[in-house]
């Protein structure tokens, strides 16, 4: 097991007042999220905007201080590390960002962007070595090293994302958080980047936490999938099990919303639409967070938070009172 996340919680304080700030409330963006990822595996993390998927990714990398819980990477508790040790560990865990337009410094050339982590960690001794390594990295992600001296604005979105991936790979990490790496790209480019990520995973034995809201993309790349709703994981299962027989009503609705690329079938199938709006994250509902919108709501859903429990199938976990 490469990464283990136990009861992770992330809170954002909400301040009031301009001069003397006082903490008014807390947004509990992520609450008691637990999962694990084995080496070489891809865990997909899906959920709608604002459900806390990105906060999970960021706090796993300790780019954000979690309010509670533990993140154990390769046997080391990240919370117990000091600044120095954490910087060392950053070599093993990297991130690919969502927006390839703002995640590259506009004042650095492609080579500088890719080579910056090498510089930070002192991973080369001579200029020639630096050039060779950055050239190699660019080649690895399918870019021509001849373009290394260009600036980010001279590249297309897909090319920029490749630069971002090359940068993440530069320090030979074992684990990469892909934070919606394709959702800012054109559909035709998305497939290329996904394939690149898969090829690299195979070649370099990488482990991914793949965050996305596109169910088709997640299905394609993931081994297992976790579904989040309002800061909690509601279901986690192997890819096929989840897509074939979703147990949580939210997952069922989510999957039902995916259109079928056949107009006859699409017109003929019954739609399962969930009612209402996503709840206010400042004023979370009691009990199960999905209960105000759930079609199968029962009395105890309003009071009791459903815990994660194994369903009939092995490795299929669900947090719902009525499911399973």
């Amino acid at each position: 097991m490469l990464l283990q996340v136990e009861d992770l919680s992330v809170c954002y304080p909400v301040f009031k007042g301009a001069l003397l700030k006082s903490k008014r409330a807390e947004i509990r963006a992520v609450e008691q999220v637990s999962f694990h990822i084995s080496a070489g595996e891809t865990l997909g993390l899906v959920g709608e905007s604002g459900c806390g998927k990105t906060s999970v990714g960021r706090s796993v990398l300790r780019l954000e201080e979690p309010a509670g819980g533990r993140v154990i990477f390769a046997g080391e508790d990240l919370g117990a590390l000091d600044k120095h040790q954490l910087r060392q560990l950053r070599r093993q865990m990297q991130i690919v960002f969502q927006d390839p337009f703002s995640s590259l410094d506009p004042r650095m050339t492609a080579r500088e962007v890719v080579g910056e982590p090498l510089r930070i960690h002192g991973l080369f001794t001579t200029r020639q070595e630096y050039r060779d390594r950055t050239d190699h990295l660019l080649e690895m992600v399918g870019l021509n090293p001849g373009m290394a001296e260009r600036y980010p604005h001279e590249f297309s979105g897909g090319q920029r994302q490749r630069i971002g991936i090359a940068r993440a790979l530069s320090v030979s990490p074992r684990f990469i958080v892909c934070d919606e790496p394709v959702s800012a790209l054109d559909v035709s480019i998305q497939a290329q980047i996904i394939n690149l990520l898969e090829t690299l995973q195979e070649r370099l034995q990488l482990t991914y936490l793949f965050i996305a809201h596109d169910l088709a993309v997640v299905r394609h790349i993931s081994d297992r999938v976790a579904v989040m709703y309002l800061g909690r994981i509601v279901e986690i299962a192997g890819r096929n099990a989840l897509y074939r027989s979703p147990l949580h009503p939210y997952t069922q609705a989510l999957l039902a919303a995916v259109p079928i690329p056949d107009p006859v079938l699409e017109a003929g199938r019954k739609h399962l639409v969930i009612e209402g709006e996503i709840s206010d994250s400042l004023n979370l509902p009691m009990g199960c967070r999905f209960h105000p919108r759930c079609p199968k709501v029962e009395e105890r859903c309003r009071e009791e938070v459903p815990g994660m429990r194994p369903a009939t199938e092995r490795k299929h976990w669900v947090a719902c009172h009525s499911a399973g």
Partner: protein
Amino acid sequence: MAIFQRNTKVKPALCRTGALAVSAALLRHKSAGAGMAIIWMLLVMALFAPWLSPHDPNEQDLYHVLQGPSRAHLLGTDDVGRDLLSRVLYGARISLIVGLLSTLTATVIGVFLGLVAGYKGGLIDGFIMRLTDTVMCIPGLILLLVMAAALGPGIHNIIIAISALGWTVFARITRGQVLMVRELPYVEAARAAGASGWRIMFQHLLPNSMAPLIVASSITVGGAIMLESAAAFLGLGVQPPTPSWGEALRVGYSYLEIVPLFSLAPGLMITLAVLAFNFLGDGLRDVLDPRLRGEGDKIK
């Protein structure tokens, strides 16, 4: 003018290759072009003063004091018979040295404090910005007089005094820029790569905050020249016999009715120098601004 700016490829957002594009656009900008021409002229005056001057600026000729323009003295002579033209040429040195050096120190101090304040935030930010507010509250000329009185007159002290006044502008601008830039994903990307705070500040935040700083420093040079002249006019600047515009203005002022050129010539030079740096600053703002907007679009 507007057409020109639209044509000068707005896209390349402030990269190093953009420096060429900026200077090309500046040359096409009318007032910035004029400003640069005057600044070049001043630089030539200052650098080549010994060769350009017809006389030794300190050579007194008490038989020919307070003369109007003549073939021997193109701008006439001052109250002790020194050649006014030579003194005006040499005076460019003091004005430029004080203007440029004090702006440089003010920029270094201000940018550093602004970076730290903007990046660290919290108490450090509060402390630095309140300090900035405090310094800004004090009227410039009064602080200048107090410092000159405390430190004694002289070029070093004038530079120190002007820098001590001028850094606040840079601190504020830098902090504002940093607050904007530090939220961008590439700063987070640097943190994820394990970059230290210093690296983020100087490799990422500073280069991406440059545009308004360049504009401000150009205008500050003009302001510093003005302050230096004011101090010299009040007798607190460079000490005689070193030629300085402010000092010539002060002495010439008493003889305004006899030889108007005595004070007019240095006065005009001060005006020209200040205007030139302000023109350049305005031009820089016009040229850099559409690029800034171009950068902003991409963030969204």
